[in-house]
């Protein structure tokens, strides 16, 4: 019995072949509704970004690119973008280099506490961002009090927090790839003369590459877009892009925010599309 993707697809296809017409109609309808529900806000934000008037109202008085042109002149957005980018890149790299070995151990070794550890590493995904943020804040305060090290509001503290966001994605997606991997190809490599390390580098890593790339992408996105947790652990003057957007919204509601969001959406969508050209994300997630 094979439980890989191909087998499942086969079952699903056979199922849907025997699906009554009405059932399929309902299924398609539900899928369309869900998609519309997800996409509608994005469509409106994008539309809004091109409105000419300052106070958003319908119908638009006209269209303009002025809000986009205003972004480069706003230091808070530019520095926020650069900080978020830096943060996401560094956190993703660290998260991958920690999460990959963890996933290997969890997928390959049998030890007591394995289940607990596995759930623990997925926890940051489940805990609400606010709770995570408060917990980290309190932790930073306590550690600073105990050791005297300047942790509260430091860049290091912020990065460490964002690594927490990346680790669950890495562990989850890499583990999924490892579990679907035919172990006999690793044994084949060893029988051909490759030691454990060479086997990992030449055979295992290329085989789980889609999972690793997807993990990097999701980790990057969740770090780049994180607001709730970051709010609690950023230091003075250290403003990430989502925080800059929030702060701007406190005083103004002009379409600049919409324009910034559109750029953010475009960046993430581009990253996804490029990634998808190299590895089919749908195969992993």
């Amino acid at each position: 019995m094979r439980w890989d993707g191909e087998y499942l697809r086969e079952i699903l296809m056979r199922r849907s072949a025997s699906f009554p017409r009405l059932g399929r109609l309902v299924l398609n309808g539900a899928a369309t509704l869900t998609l519309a529900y997800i996409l509608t806000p994005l469509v409106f934000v994008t539309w809004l970004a091109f409105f000419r008037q300052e106070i958003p109202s319908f119908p638009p008085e006209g269209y303009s690119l002025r809000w986009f042109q205003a972004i480069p002149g706003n230091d808070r957005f530019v520095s926020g973008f650069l900080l978020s980018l830096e943060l996401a890149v560094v956190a993703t790299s660290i998260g991958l280099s920690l999460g990959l070995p963890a996933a290997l151990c969890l997928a390959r070794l049998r030890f007591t506490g394995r289940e607990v550890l596995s759930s623990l590493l997925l926890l940051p995904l489940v805990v609400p961002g606010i709770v995570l943020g408060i917990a980290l804040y309190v932790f930073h305060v306590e550690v600073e009090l105990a050791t005297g090290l300047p942790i509260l509001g430091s860049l290091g503290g912020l990065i460490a927090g964002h690594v927490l966001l990346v680790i669950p994605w890495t562990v989850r997606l890499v583990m999924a790839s490892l579990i679907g991997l035919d172990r006999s190809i690793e044994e084949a490599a060893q029988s051909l003369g490759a030691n454990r390390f060479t086997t990992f580098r030449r055979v295992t890593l290329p085989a789980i590459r889609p999972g690793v790339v997807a993990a990097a992408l999701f980790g990057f996105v969740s770090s780049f877009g994180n607001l709730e947790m970051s709010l609690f652990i950023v230091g003075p003057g250290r403003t990430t892009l989502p925080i800059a957007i929030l702060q701007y919204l406190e005083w103004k509601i002009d379409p600049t925010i919409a324009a910034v969001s559109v750029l953010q959406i475009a960046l993430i969508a581009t990253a996804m599309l490029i990634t998808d050209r190299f590895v089919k994300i749908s195969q992993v997630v």
Partner: protein
Amino acid sequence: MARLEIDRVSKHYGDVIAVRDLTLDVADGEFVVLLGPSGCGKTTTLRIVAGFAVPTSGVVRLGDRDVTRLPPWKRNAGLVFQSYALFPHLSVARNVAFGLEMRKVEASQMQRRVADALRLVRLEHLSERLPRQLSGGQQQRVALARALAFYPDVLLLDEPLSNLDAKLRAEVRVEIRELQRRLGLTTVMVTHDQEEALTMADRLVVMNDGAVRQVGTQKELYERPSDRFVAGFVGRSTFIEGEIEAPGRFRSAGGLAIVCKEATAGPATLALRPERIVFTPERLASMDNSLPGVVEFVSYLGATIDMHVRISPNERVIVQVSNRESGLVPTVGGRVFVAWPAEGSIVFAGAGN
């Protein structure tokens, strides 16, 4: 190639004994098949030879080297897996080159040896393909070429044909065997398919429950099975329980008197090969045994016909007749005689199970 010696090897997994006290010598260039039902320890034995399992006790020697505790990558054993285990991200040529790269063979020589290996399996025209672009049979041949390209000391085949369809399997069987003979490869194959084992092996090792039951050529196993298990696993047998009453006379549990060659008195099991039994409309006085019976089941298999004939309330024998010697068409319910010579039945002392 080299000689392989497995010397008193056992493998325990906790309380479970996967292999018990197995000794086997495979001569240089010999093709040995480990045959047995699943869970009999044959695959564990192969993994011990390949280096993926370390025996609890015993020694494995390959050529002059004691390899018992050597990791797989230092053993120089070519391995072909049931799933082929080709590297999905590498082309056919790169797959075959892998073992050579690991041995740091220089580029010009590597190219030649990859081409040679692919020519052996007649796939030189597909060298740039990826494994998923090949059929099952082609993938299997790539796996074989990959296992041979680096000149291994021993070739290990783990159920290499079980993923192929029946027709292809018969072809590849012959192909592997011819290649093995031509190159003089010391080979150990694991299979549960007796037909595969019989067509390919120089010598067979029948295993059950972690232990070797019998080692021998096809003829030896077939004609002189050492026990009831071998008689049932290699070829087919009908077993009749009973006892040896007097030298040469077997009395079945159902009360039949059967002439045989066994002399030692006591409880015994009689094994009959379906193709050794003759089936006649009248009693055959010239045979040692000729018993009346009723045909209860007939299956027409094309070249042969199988009949199940009840010869006593407790006993039924399977008779296989060649389709050519027709004249008498067996029909269910028909009264017939089944006959066989004294040496046609094999007797195992002791009660059966």
